[in-house]
């Protein structure tokens, strides 16, 4: 569970601009993929369509074989409950503690308070912020806020994890940490798709990279470890040592 297929997906906006043009791509369960390209290339449109925040003009988006572009408004929430999403602007609620921010998706699902506490703490432990659960987001650094956003995205244990420029505001070292975090979820079988314009960083990760330009795929490079198939753990060996040249 966690397979994604785009079939000739076109998104034309009201102003006539095309966000995606006849885009076809597929993502296996448990794979990790980076989407890259200049701003306006279609990365965000891709993720928005996948989250059903918008509907494509033409084409199909199949998730686990179901065309999610046809989901009724009534069923959409239950689909979204199975996705995790992280954004550059992390969308944390300023008037709630870190714990409550991460707990939000679980409250929506209606878990028991005891289970919520257990799973929130597990998610916060994973992103290394358990000690800050009682703080409000404004007392955290940008990197920490981003990690809270990630904890909120994964606390429901989604099969698919999407991220739109998750390292946009971070310095290279923190960015690296965040990307490693995403790789950990990929390693436990989550399908991960990360949009990022930071070429140096994502090339160092050794994963599949799809480059978009003006809504079309211009290149699709498989991961360096040719074993980027479902769930296979990567050999981290080569990537870690070389921080790429700063721009």
């Amino acid at each position, binding site marked *: 569970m966690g397979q994604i297929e785009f079939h000739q997906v076109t998104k034309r906006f009201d102003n006539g601009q095309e966000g995606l043009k006849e885009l076809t791509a597929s993502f296996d369960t448990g794979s990790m993929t980076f989407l890259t390209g200049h701003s306006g290339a279609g990365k965000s449109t891709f993720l928005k369509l996948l989250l059903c*925040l918008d509907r494509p003009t033409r084409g199909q988006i199949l998730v*686990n074989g*179901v065309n999610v572009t046809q989901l009724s408004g009534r069923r959409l*929430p*239950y689909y979204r*409950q199975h996705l995790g999403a992280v954004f550059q602007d992390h969308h944390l609620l300023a008037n709630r503690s870190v714990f409550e921010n991460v707990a939000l998706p679980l*409250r*929506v699902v*209606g878990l*028991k308070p005891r289970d919520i506490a257990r799973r929130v703490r597990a998610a916060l432990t994973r992103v290394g912020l358990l000690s800050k659960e009682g703080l409000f987001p404004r007392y955290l650094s940008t990197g920490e806020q981003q990690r809270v956003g990630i904890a909120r995205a994964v606390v429901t244990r989604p099969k698919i994890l999407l991220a739109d420029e998750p390292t946009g505001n971070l310095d290279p070292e923190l960015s690296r940490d965040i990307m490693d975090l995403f790789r950990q979820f990929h390693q436990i079988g989550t399908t991960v798709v990360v949009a990022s314009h930071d070429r140096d960083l994502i090339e160092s990760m050794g994963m599949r990279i799809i480059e978009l330009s003006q809504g079309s795929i211009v290149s699709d490079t498989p991961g360096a470890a040719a074993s980027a198939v479902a769930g296979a753990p990567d050999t981290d060996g080569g990537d870690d040592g070389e921080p790429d040249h700063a721009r």
Partner: protein
Amino acid sequence: MRGKAARDPWPRQRAGLLALGRDHRRIVGETGHFVAERLGTSLLVWLLVGIALALPAGLFLLQQNLAAMTGAWEGRPGLSVYFELDAASGAPDALADALTRHGAVADVTVVSADEALAEFRRYTDLADALDMLDDNPLPASLRATLARGAGPEDLDALAALAEEAEGVAEVVVEKTWLERVTDITRVVSRLGAMLAALFGLGAVLITATSVRLAIEARLEELRVLKLVGATDAQIRRPFLYFGLVYGLGGGLVAAMLISIGILVIEGPLTDLLGSYGRELELAGFDFIFLGGLFLLAALLGVGGALVAARQRLGDLEIL
């Protein structure tokens, strides 16, 4: 593929009653917090809704009391029949029987000439003057009272019946009084219904506007909630509670305004009624009235919230 389960990988998960209860409890807590945080605004909303409700509710109370008072004043219409002095002694009873058989008559009281004289003696100081007369100068009479629900046309029919009867000197119909009362009642109730509709609409608009503001204040949170898969019902729920709180608070203010109003008019009204030899008995301001007021206030509040939620949440852009 395993049939249906494979076709719908994201089945609707019905939250159990317990989970639903938890959600409601959490929302009630949050609503209280939100209202308390913006106490000034909330008080203003309560006052506005309260005023909007107090006017029609007060008018309703007034109408109730008017009806109760006219009822107690024996304002029920009827007709009085006066007989000739030399009419046959059986004539009044015969007419009384005929009238009683008519469905529109509630009761008939016959006062014979002798009884009239006795009553006259009892209530006046003119007994000595009467003694100087040879004959009884007072005629026999009867009074018929209309049954509840009988209209002016019944009165016409009864009057015709009485006029044709033997020995009848005069028929006095209290018709104008009846018509006036029905007209006034109709005007008051139509006015009340119109005011109630207008001010009810006002209350709905006030809560709708306030709930819209509450939605605007929490837009960021709603976007996140929608993103993580909250259903429309879940997103709407807190705001329905807002509407409920605004409505109930407005109902409370309205109840307070009405009781203040009663206190204010109580003195002058007692004096006015006193001049007619009556005591003030305000009816209708009871638990049923208050319960109805609060129920109506709550419904209007929730209705306003629904309007606002439909307007604002329907096309909520997530990001």
